[in-house]
């Protein structure tokens, strides 16, 4: 079962320098929320930003990770 720490490591490995917070929403190890601040998101649409994060997990989304809620932003912006 994936843990928040594991998800956090995988995101950070794929997006070096990113500030990543992951919560297990239900405590059940399958519904997660990730907040990611990264300069890699600069100039990308929301769709593209979220896709970058989904791509880290590939087929695990909808499988081992039933749900991953994502909030992305760039260091320069508080909301995006």
């Amino acid at each position, binding site marked *: 079962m994936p843990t928040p720490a594991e998800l956090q490591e995988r995101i950070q490995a794929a997006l070096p320098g990113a500030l990543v917070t992951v919560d297990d929403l239900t405590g059940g190890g399958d519904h997660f929320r990730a907040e990611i601040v990264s300069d890699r998101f600069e100039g990308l649409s929301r769709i593209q930003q*979220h896709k970058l994060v*989904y791509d880290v997990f590939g087929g695990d989304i909808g499988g081992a990770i039933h749900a991953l809620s994502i909030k992305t932003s760039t260091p320069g912006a508080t909301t995006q």
Partner: protein
Amino acid sequence: MTNDEIRDFLQQAIDENRVMLFMKGTPNQPQCGFSARASGALNALGVQYAALDILPDPRIREELSGLSGWPTIPQLYVDKELVGGSDIIIEMFESGELAGLLGVEQPEEVEAEPQPEPAQRPIGLENRLD
């Protein structure tokens, strides 16, 4: 129905409906909290939209994600473009961007609570799967 036929059907739904929501369940009876929030946001804006339940056959979701490159449900399309999943839909709803994109007024009460009145009948795929 073959996988190719399912994919064609999904593409047609995207092409023919300006606001197209793929969800788990229906706007009246969403089967997942994320889908409920997405359809709730559209209901709160009072826009006409088409909804398609992906649950009746696992191939619907496979083909949809193959088309969009987006792994999760719900998925909202406006003018044939993928707008996003539930996180993006809710963010854009709360900021007023979604109302702007859809050309409607932002309601004063901004709450994405599911409301049981779909603006349009759900599209049925069930009876085409056999």
